[in-house]
């Protein structure tokens, strides 16, 4: 069995690949649904309706997509330079904690700042917290050659325990009756709603704006060129005079900052406080989204909406038929693997001999 590069990648193949991957995913997931003893067609219809079938469904999907766009960006930017940041989950929590520290605990610092300034400080500190958290693995990679996948993964556990420690200690909400929940943000720091009587908040616009900026930066700036060069071939990039170490560090900072912002925006837009279950794995799901999007920041928006729709739809479906919500995770995981194979087969031909 061997791979043979196709001479030219036909546009038709490139467009068909993601659809083929989605079709394959739905077919595999259908087996799982059938195994649970539920009618496949009705289950899919319910997932689709729950995710995209009504104004309410769309509003829930877009609310869920907001943090996913940002964690998807975090992965897409880093993976472009082959910096495998798997720590977006931890960076998200670090950002959320920083946001609450600035916007909820104003011990002297925020008390006399106008809300607009305080909000900027909140976002800035969240981005900084995420970036600093990613700086450690990035430095360990460039200076000592430590694989960043393992360090970022391990840091996720450290951060989650740190959050738990803060929620028990200095950031504990005294009014939460023993629930592990942080103090809440001041009301004037909460993001406004985009649509009345829904949960969609203006964080969606921030996330989409950042995706456009990331896309433009990767495509149109020297830095973006350097990122792509490092990702394509670090040795050749270094030979051509690209500052590889600096590029990897900067990419790490940008990636961590995006994930940190996801946490801050989730706090300011949806909950108002930090809990230990505020992210059902948004950091990890972001990796899938980035891969589905082919690491393209604009594609991340579409992929995040798709994945959010599946997650929201599966939640509402499982209230109607006896299929566990974990079907959403199965769909997302199979979609990742199918997408990898589909993009590969658009570029290569598999020869069995």
């Amino acid at each position: 069995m061997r791979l043979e590069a196709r001479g030219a990648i036909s546009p038709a193949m490139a467009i068909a690949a993601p659809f083929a991957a989605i079709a394959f995913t739905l077919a595999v997931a259908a087996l799982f649904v059938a195994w649970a003893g539920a009618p496949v067609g009705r289950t899919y219809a319910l997932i689709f309706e729950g995710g995209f079938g009504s104004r309410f469904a769309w509003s829930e999907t877009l609310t869920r997509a907001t943090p996913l766009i940002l964690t998807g960006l975090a992965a897409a930017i880093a993976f472009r330079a082959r910096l495998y940041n798997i720590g977006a989950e931890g960076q998200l929590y670090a950002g959320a904690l920083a946001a609450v520290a600035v916007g909820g605990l104003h011990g002297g610092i925020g008390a006399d700042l106008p809300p607009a300034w305080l909000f900027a400080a909140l976002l800035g500190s969240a981005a900084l917290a995420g970036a600093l958290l990613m700086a450690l693995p990035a430095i360990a990679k460039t200076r000592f050659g430590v694989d960043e996948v393992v360090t970022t993964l391990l840091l996720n556990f450290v951060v989650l325990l740190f959050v738990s420690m803060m929620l028990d200690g200095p950031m504990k909400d005294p009014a939460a009756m023993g629930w592990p929940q942080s103090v809440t943000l001041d009301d004037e720091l909460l993001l406004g709603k985009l649509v009345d009587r829904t949960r969609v908040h203006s964080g969606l616009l921030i996330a989409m704006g950042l995706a456009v900026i990331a896309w433009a930066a990767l495509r149109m700036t020297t830095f973006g060129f350097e990122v792509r060069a490092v990702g394509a071939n670090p040795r050749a990039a270094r030979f051509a005079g690209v500052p590889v170490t600096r590029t990897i560090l900067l990419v790490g900072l940008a990636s961590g900052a995006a994930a940190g912002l996801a946490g801050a925006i989730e706090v300011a837009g949806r909950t108002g406080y930090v809990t230990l279950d505020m992210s059902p794995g948004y950091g990890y799901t972001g990796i899938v989204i980035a891969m589905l999007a082919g690491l393209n920041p604009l594609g991340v928006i579409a992929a995040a909406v798709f994945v959010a729709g599946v997650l929201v739809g599966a939640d509402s479906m499982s209230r109607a038929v006896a299929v566990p919500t974990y079907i959403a995770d199965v769909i997302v995981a199979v979609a990742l693997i199918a997408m990898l194979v589909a993009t590969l087969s658009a570029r290569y031909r598999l020869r069995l001999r």
Partner: protein
Amino acid sequence: MLDALAAMLVHADFWSAVLRIATPLILGTLGVLLCERAGVLNLGIEGIMVAGAFTGWLAVHAGAGLWTGVLVAAATGALFGALHGVLTVPLALSQHVSGLGITMFASSVAYYAYRVSFPNVTTPPTIRPFVEMRWLELPVLSAQTPLTLLALALVPLVAWVLARTPAGLAVRMVGENPAAAEGQGLSVSAVRIGAIVAGSALMGVAGAFLTLSAFNAFFFNMVNGRGWICVALVVFAGWRPGKALAGALLFAFFDAMQLRLQQADAGGLPYQAWLMLPYLLSIVALVAVARRASYPQALMRPYRKGER
């Protein structure tokens, strides 16, 4: 506090705990080591451990014997390993991304299957797990279950296979210099996939230890990063089975100590600070050995015949 520490260290219970905590790490680390010596990173371990923990337990719950459960877990691991092997060896996909994909796939399938099989349970159903080998009448070992003995026996076995058998030589060759292996008439793909399947089977057993020996039920998040720690331990061990055992024991030593100190409320630290220790320790160990780590030369390098 030092008195408490000294008292703890002379107590056999403490060392029993060390060995118990080390067991899944030994099995998982050997599994990762096999894959990486053949040149393939396997980040699927975290999910494969979840899947092995689930299927092994499910088999026993359905009435099979405990050892059958272990075999079922190994087969589950092998199956996911085969998928990872196909994705990363002939298809040459990113080993990082494929491994993460396997972890997501294996763990979500396990959780889904658990919910399908037990839709309405609030407390996890239990089984009768492996019992301690009291008949051994040895200080620390008799407080262990046969799975720990299996893990300990596998260390010299894997070391011997790698160092002294043709199969082990083939694994090391495809991990160091696949072109030379091909020149010797070996099929690089077959050897690599074989090593991944075997290593993943061990990861499945590592998961099964949790449900068949350490506990008697399947919980969500029960693997809790142990798989990632194994990946770190392999680097720490310099890809050598003997050092992998030492690394797993050292790690388990600190983990057991942190558990005791946490219970004793020593130092007045919040319990989360103690729980962080194992993860921080793994990171520190990684950074400490990274400079002189001798990676298998072809690790993470896909091999395509006739290409350089």
